[in-house]
Structure formats: structure tokens, C-alpha cells
């Protein structure tokens, strides 16, 4: 069968799959292919995780490969460090964003630095899976967007998928990476669906490459994770207003794909960064600053930011007012000084 024919057949066999299923499949395939991969976390065993991402893994690979740990996040990540020191490749699940905070010291002071501290002698190929973001009606401490903390920590990769296929590809790549990766899973996309054939040969996306999800000429929306579908929707709605928006899904916050991003903004001359995380001190500042450094003379307007407000994450009944939505994105696009230039 030719590659084209194979691809066509694979596409035909594709069935709707959720992002959670694709993530689970990535774990399964990693466990199957590489005996040094171990999954550990709270409730990842028989329960299959509170989001069911690890469903079936303990059954298929045994408790030694997919392990329910005691309830202690620093302990989980700390023991994962030890396991990685011995040559294993641990994949740690943090149950929710805010419950990764107890492991912060281990993450910052050890995970991120061990390779550097030992001049390359002891890399730590650990993947830390962190469900993040809101929009699922979670009560407090269940909806934080904590990516700014990880971005500010040299030595970590920070990756986040927005599609079912990327969920698989990026998680495989993260587990295969010889560096520690904080793998941020957008909670509200866990149940998002796409046609996907888990048995077809899957593309393993390289870490560190953004992708243009929609080409456009008026302005660029720079976004990632849970905000990607929102930006796509905004771009569709913008057509009616006469704007042809380009949408860039960053996919990897660290390393940052300056090339793809700058190329897009140079083309369009205008940009809005969109994310759920608080605006102040959030990822958008870094992104806007580096785009401006690189594209200053191409910019018709300052790079604007649409972000969560600078408040603790709100209670479920109010979260829709906090989360960047289509209208707020279009409002920002409207402020891109259209009278000023092209």
C-alpha cells in the first residue's frame, strides 16, 4: 500500500476520540514501547485518574508500571527524580494545577536543574502532567493557569496541546524527551473530540514548534491550549467584521518558537496574545515583549493581550466573566489601530 493510500485508509478508520483518550493512548504506547517508562500519581491506578486519562494502564502493565502513590506531591515528584536518576523515565500526574504547588521546590530546585548541576551527567527525563485552566465549573484550587511559574524556570520544557492529535503527539514527544517537561493539559478540552485513528502511525510532533492553525492577513492571534478553540471561533466571527485573522497555536511555551511567531506577525503587522492565565505577570507579557523586540518596525499597533483578569480564579458561577471569550478577543482586535496603517 502506498503511503498516500495508507494515510487515506487510516483516515477512513478514524473515529471520534477525545483528548483524554488520545493522552491515555500516548501513555499506553509509551509504556509498551519503552520499559523504562513508569506512570505514577494519585489515583492513576484502578481508578484511571480523576479524568480517566490513565484508564486501564495498571491493568495492562501492572502496578509497578502505573502506580498509585501516597498522597504527597513533593513525594511523588521527589521519588520520580530518584527513579530518573536510576535511569527510569517517570511520567508523573498531578491531579490538578493547584495541587502541583506542593511539589514546587522539587520542580524548581531539582527537576529543572539536575542536568545543569551535574554538567550533563544526570539528565532527568521526567514528564509532569498537569491538568490546568478553568471552564469546567471546578471549585477553588481546581482551575488555576499556572504556566507562568513554569515558564519562568530555566531547565523545564513547557508544552500544551490544543487538539486531539497534538495531545498524542506532544505527549509522546515529551515522554521521549531527555529533558523534564511540564505537560499542561487543558482541562476543558479533555472531552473535546476529533476524528482520530489510534492505530494509524501517529505523528510525533517535535517539541518547540508552533503551528499556524488558520492563516489570515489582518492580524495574528497568538495563543495556546484551552484558548486555541476560542481564538478559532473568534477568527470565524471576525470575518463578518472584515478581519482575516491568523491563529498561531504556540503548543510549546518553552522552548518558544520565535521563528514561526515572528514570521506571522511580520506578515500581518498586528497581534493579540490570548490566554486564560492572569494577565499581569502571565505568559502574555513575555510573548508580547519578544514579538515586539523582533517585529517592532512591522507593527502597526502595540501587541495587545487578552487574558484572565488579575484576580484569584473565580467560583464556577462567575468564571464565564473571567475567561477570555470571542467578544473580548474581537474587542482587542478592534483596538489594533486600524486607522493607523495598512
Amino acid at each position: 500500500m502506498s503511503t498516500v493510500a495508507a494515510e487515506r485508509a487510516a483516515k477512513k478508520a478514524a473515529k471520534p476520540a477525545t483528548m483524554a483518550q488520545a493522552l491515555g493512548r500516548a501513555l499506553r504506547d509509551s509504556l509498551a514501547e519503552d520499559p523504562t517508562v513508569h506512570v505514577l500519581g494519585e489515583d492513576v491506578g484502578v481508578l484511571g485518574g480523576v479524568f480517566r486519562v490513565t484508564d486501564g494502564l495498571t491493568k495492562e502493565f501492572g502496578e509497578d508500571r502505573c502506580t498509585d502513590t501516597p498522597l504527597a506531591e513533593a513525594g511523588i515528584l521527589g521519588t520520580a527524580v530518584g527513579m530518573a536518576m536510576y535511569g527510569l523515565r517517570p511520567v508523573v500526574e498531578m491531579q490538578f494545577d493547584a495541587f502541583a504547588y506542593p511539589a514546587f521546590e522539587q520542580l524548581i530546585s531539582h527537576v529543572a536543574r539536575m542536568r545543569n548541576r551535574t554538567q550533563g551527567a544526570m539528565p532527568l527525563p521526567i514528564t509532569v502532567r498537569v491538568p490546568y485552566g478553568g471552564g469546567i465549573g471546578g471549585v477553588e484550587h481546581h482551575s488555576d493557569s499556572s504556566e507562568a511559574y513554569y515558564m519562568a524556570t530555566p531547565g523545564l520544557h513547557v508544552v500544551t496541546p490544543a487538539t486531539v492529535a497534538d495531545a498524542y503527539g506532544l505527549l509522546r514527544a515529551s515522554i521521549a524527551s531527555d529533558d523534564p517537561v511540564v505537560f499542561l493539559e487543558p482541562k476543558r478540552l479533555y472531552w473535546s473530540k476529533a476524528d482520530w485513528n489510534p492505530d494509524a502511525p501517529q505523528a510525533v510532533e517535535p517539541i518547540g514548534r508552533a503551528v499556524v492553525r488558520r492563516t489570515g492577513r489582518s492580524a495574528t492571534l497568538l495563543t495556546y491550549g484551552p484558548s486555541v478553540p476560542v481564538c478559532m471561533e473568534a477568527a470565524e466571527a471576525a470575518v463578518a467584521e472584515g478581519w482575516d485573522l491568523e491563529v498561531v497555536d504556540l503548543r510549546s511555551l518553552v522552548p518558544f518558537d520565535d521563528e514561526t511567531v515572528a514570521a506571522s506577525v511580520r506578515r500581518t503587522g498586528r497581534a493579540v496574545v490570548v490566554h486564560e492565565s492572569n494577565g499581569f505577570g502571565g505568559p502574555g507579557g513575555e510573548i508580547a515583549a519578544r514579538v515586539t523586540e523582533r517585529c517592532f518596525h512591522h507593527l502597526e499597533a502595540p501587541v495587545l493581550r487578552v487574558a484572565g483578569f488579575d484576580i484569584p480564579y473565580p467560583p464556577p458561577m462567575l468564571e464565564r466573566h473571567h475567561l477570555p471569550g470571542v467578544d473580548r478577543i474581537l474587542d482587542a482586535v478592534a483596538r489594533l489601530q486600524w486607522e493607523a496603517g495598512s
Partner: protein
Amino acid sequence: MTVMEQRGVYRPTPPPAWQLRTDPAPLLPDAEPYRVLGTEAAGKADEELLGRLYAQLVRGRRYNTQATALTKQGRLAVYPSSTGQEACEVAAALVLQDRDWLFPSYRDTLAAVARGLDPVQALTLLRGDWHTGYDPREHRIAPLCTPLATQLPHAVGLAHAARLKGDDVVALAMVGDGGTSEGDFHEALNFAAVWRAPVVFLVQNNGFAISVPLDKQTAAPSLAHKAVGYGMPGRLVDGNDAAAVHEVLSEAVSRAREGGGPTLVEAVTYRMEAHTNADDATRYRGDAEVEAWRDHDPILLLERELTERGLLDEDRTRAVRYDAEAMAADLRERMNRDPDLDPMDLFGHVYAEQTSQLREQAAQLRAELEASAEEGAEGAGGADGEESGR
């Protein structure tokens, strides 16, 4: 002499003069959970207290079933039921004086309610209209705590502060078996013992942390055995025996009040429902185990005792049930109303004074709300353009 100076002035001395700093023997728990109901000790139990415990258990169970029902009607975002654990919840509330403080976890709304908090306020967090539905200082009930074990150092700090101020205040902090594995549990107990803070730590060992059974959580003889490592007494009690829990907690509260320092109490109980309504317990435990615990139901145990002793007639039972039903009906009725929310509250109380950044953001949201109200679209609530005084 200040509080901090009251401690022994132990200094490490060369090993020839070494001695244990305290005698470990009295700190160790008994080999069996302490029980009252159905034992000789029951004879000494205060009948009035047993009656109050009974009324509260029945009310507590009804509260649990009502809250669970509210999740099905979409009136609560989530509910972690304490069905089966009512003896612990109720006893924790009843042993405290008004001036004492309770530090509940997410599962312990019942303890707050049994202490007198309005159930609607107790459930605010779980309904989702705000994080904490009551004024903690007014009720001496700390906010329901979700990040596991993080409330324990708070309890220690508060109790310590009260002692520094010379106030007669005890703090009782609640945590689950799973929560004992967290570093904050360790640090809190250690601070409490070193500072001799008037705190009681109540661990409800309900057998599970979501799906994870106790044997994957600890290899200790019992959780109460952890106490000796901090130099405080550890007590093991049958957590479904309301009279026993009350007695053990009362003793611990008295000891704390009298300057005797903290106590760790492990109450052995069982979580009869799933972790929350969102959980599927059949994935990790069998019916048989759950059924076995039904014989040891806290209401059943107390009812048996009261009945045998002729303390429970039909009138009393009816009155207790009536009170419980009235509470449930009121709760149902009030939870069925939509809470009155003002989105502008998002910007309230982030800081004592709003920063210029928050003022800008509030103005933005206000404008959005006004615009959508003008559009006649079913405006996103409270678009009156003013912050509520809430």
C-alpha cells in the same frame, strides 16, 4: 515568663548523659480503637449528651442525603458526602466551646452545620457562587479547605496566637487519612508539639483517599502512632461510635485548654458513598466491604444503645426526624433559588484597595456587561455598573 520560654531548656548533652526527652509510653495509642457504645463505658455516658448526639446524627444524615440530592438537581457543583462519618463530624462540632475554632476540610461541611452554621452558607463553596460562604471570624470556622492538610498549620498558628494573647481558645482541625501523607501534616504537628499549641488534630480514617486504600497510604501500625514522633499523645477511636469520639475529643480539648498541648486522634470510620458525586466507587471497591460497614452505622450503634436503655421512645424519634426533615426542606427550598450574583464582585477583595490595574479591568467588564445588557441579550447578570457591597 513568656509562652515560648515555658519549654524545657533541653540542650544536647554528650551521649553518656543522654536521655529520652519524654516518656514515649503514654503517647502511644491503644492497640484497639476506643469504644463506648455497647461496652461497659456506656453506662457512664451522659444521657443528655447521647440524646443530643443522636438528634445531630439523624439531622446530619439527612443533611448528607439532601446535599447529595441537590447535586443530582444541578444545584451543587459537587458534594463530598460524609455519610457514614456523621459521628466524627457531629462530635467534632459538639466538643467545642463557642470561642473555639474549627478547621474543616472540604468534606466537613456537616461539622460546620452541626456547629450552627447555616447549611446554605456551608454549601456556598460547593454550589459555586463564592469560595467561602460565611465570615470565618463570626463563626470561628475557618474556610473549608481543599488543598489537603494545608489547614493544619493554620490551626496551629491560630491556637498559638490565641495562647500568646492569653485567650482560652482551642483549635480543632480535621483531615483525612490521605491528608496525613502530605508534608503539611508533618510540619503542623511538629510546630504544634514544639509550641505546645492548644490544637486537636482529628484524622478521619475513612479507608480511602478517593480510590487509594489505606495500605497504599501508610505502613504504620495506625495513623495514631504518628503522634509519638512529634511528642504528643496519639489516640485511636472507633469513629462510628459518637459517644467514644466525643469522649476522646473532649479529653483532648480539655488537655489543650489546660496547657497540655496538642493531641492526634485517629477515628476509624468508613466513607459509605463515593468520594464525591462525580466519583465512581465501583471502580475500586466491592459492595461486600461497603455492606459490612452498614452494620456499624453510627446512627444504628447509638440507636441500639439508646433503645436498650429506654432513652428513645417514639415521640423522641419523631421529633428528631421532624427537625431533620424541616432542615432538609428549608435547605432544598433555599438552594433551589438562584443565588443573586454580581460579576463585579470578581474585583472585590483582591486587595484592601483596588489597584489601578484592577480598576481598569473592572471598568472593562462593566462596559461589557452594559453593552450586552443594551443589546437586550440576556445580559450576563448584575450589569448595574456598580460594585455590590457584598
